């Protein structure tokens, strides 16, 4: 039984990859630039979803504050783009500073002149912030719903801070990236967006492999152990605080990369990335796709967001109802998410319900030995 299940899983994974790679290769030629750009954005969101799956699906930490790390990554990318494109503005600093009478670049902008620093900062800064928040929270053994509330409260703190700092980072208006220059090209231009699409596609695959590597083997088993029975892990001699801090930090880093890619493809980063609903949506993508499956996180993020844009175009304002309904449906009918349902006994149970497949009367192993018996 377990053997056929492994084969089945492999088939799903393989077919997913064939479809995904075919889609990625075909997308730039078959999709209009507008749609391609949307797909690129949603693919970048799937990276933050992978992080949510690592901390929630595997380790049992339901964070409602991933928007913090997502936005930090976005701000890092946007600051670099703004500062390298500011040569024609007064004082050689980004244009918005003039609005608030700022003449000198705030000190923390300086390192973002360096592309190398920026590339590192995009994932290291969110990872460090996540690691710090995580360590303090986990060390004090705050878990479950208290952890979720705490992450949401942190999100609000960050949101309010970023929203209020006009003189530092343009406050509520955010930082625009589409009219900035990168390697002599406009970031919002068609050719650049095409390149960002490719980069995103490659990074999604890289992030998936990375996440897969993290959860395979004993490290991943400890994460599952922490999710299912943390005290038992402690009494076996492991320190869950370190494991939780590491995985939360990894999820933060992934969120940062995701935020940066999303920013350059949507043309702006703003405190809106740190609103409460957006971080909750990230959790919904993973719940719908399937917790603890990694693939489910990617599929959930891409399909839900694509559906969101299609539905919003056709029936504006109805999306929130559909999203809510989807979440309720998953929680009540498919607690393992769509992919979890497919990987489990879901399809077989459905066929049985419609009489298309014979019911298994007893344990599968008994069924083989006793094909005729027990059928009343």
């Amino acid at each position: 039984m377990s053997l056929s299940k492994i084969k089945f899983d492999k088939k799903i994974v393989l077919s997913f990859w064939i479809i995904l790679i075919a889609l990625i290769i075909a997308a730039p030629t078959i999709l209009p630039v507008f749609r391609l750009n949307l797909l690129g954005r949603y693919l970048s969101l799937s990276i933050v979803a992978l992080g949510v799956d690592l901390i929630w699906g595997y380790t049992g930490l339901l964070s409602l504050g991933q928007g913090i790390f997502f936005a930090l990554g976005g701000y890092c990318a946007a600051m670099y783009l703004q500062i390298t494109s500011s040569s024609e503005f007064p004082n050689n600093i980004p244009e918005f500073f003039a609005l608030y009478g700022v003449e000198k670049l705030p000190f923390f902008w300086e390192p973002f002149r360096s592309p190398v620093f920026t590339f590192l900062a995009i994932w290291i800064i969110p990872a460090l912030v996540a690691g710090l928040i995580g360590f303090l929270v986990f060390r004090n053994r705050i878990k479950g719903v208290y952890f979720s509330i705490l992450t949401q409260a942190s999100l609000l703190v960050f949101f309010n801070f970023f929203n209020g700092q006009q003189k530092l980072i343009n406050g509520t208006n955010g930082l625009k990236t589409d009219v900035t220059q990168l390697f002599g090209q406009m970031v919002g231009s068609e050719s650049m967006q095409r390149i960002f699409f490719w980069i995103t596609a490659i990074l999604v695959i890289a992030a998936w492999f990375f996440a897969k590597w993290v959860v395979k083997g004993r490290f991943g088993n400890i994460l599952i152990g922490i999710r299912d029975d943390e005290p038992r892990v402690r009494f076996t001699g492991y320190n869950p605080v370190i494991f939780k801090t590491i995985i939360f930090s990894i999820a933060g880093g992934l969120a940062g990369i995701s935020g940066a890619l999303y920013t350059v493809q949507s043309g702006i980063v703003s405190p809106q990335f740190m609103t409460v609903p957006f971080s909750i949506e990230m959790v919904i993508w993973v719940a719908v796709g399937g917790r603890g499956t990694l693939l489910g996180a990617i599929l959930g993020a891409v399909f839900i967001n694509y559906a969101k844009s299609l539905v919003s175009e056709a029936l504006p304002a109805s999306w929130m109802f559909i999203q809510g309904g989807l979440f309720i449906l998953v929680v009540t009918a498919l607690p393992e998410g769509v992919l979890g349902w497919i990987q489990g006994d879901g399809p077989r149970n459905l066929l049985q319900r419609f009489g298309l497949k014979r019911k298994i009367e007893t344990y599968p192993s008994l069924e083989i030995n006793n094909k005729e018996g027990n059928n009343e």
Partner: protein
Amino acid sequence: MNNKDLLNLIDITVSFEGFLALNKLNLNLKKGELRAVIGPNGAGKTTFLDVITGKVKPTNGEVIFKGKSLVGRKEHKIARLGVGRKFQSPRIFENLTVKENLEISVTTPKSPLNLINKSIKDEQLNEIDRLMKIVNLAQKVDSKAGSLSHGQKQWLEIAMLVGQKPDLMLVDEPVAGLTDEETDLTADLLKSLSGENTVVVIDHDMEFIRRLDSNVSVLNQGTVLCEGTMETIQKDKKVIDVYLGRPED
């Protein structure tokens, strides 16, 4: 207290908001000893284990293990010092396979870095094979631990405990819900572990305790009522009154 002792509990008092779960409990264990701890419900048996393993900090008193004080140490540090614990109801990782459960227990060092970039050592794999044979789970290597029967779960947890190579094994009700045959096998297993390891077994099942053929400590109201062999215990008037009751015949 002397040097041969592996563990000394000295005047341990645990107070839960005024309720004394343990009251000046004293207990010494020699290296290699097998000790049974019995007592009526609420006598403080599980709290006694919680104090040793660091889950509960004693209000008063001292726990000395291998010459070091355990009071105030974190659970995982105590576990690494060599105290292993099996819980009352089997606590295994149900979503992992039997082998993965045992990997978690035999792995050393238990650091994230070791787990993520090194594969498991050959001697640890051999140890897992050995353990699975001892507890008759060799056929179930790749089964999810959650699919095991109750008795198999109990044994898997005992195997995980042994795999941790603790100097002191604390075993809480290992035969609850087991068949008679399984109970006998478990008693033999625990007996074979003592000598090399020091084992403390907590249980209600008198037949099982008798079969262990070890020294027995009787707990009552958070303190040690009486200590000795099964025969002495059974003749002790205080013990009869609080726990054993009158002979049934």
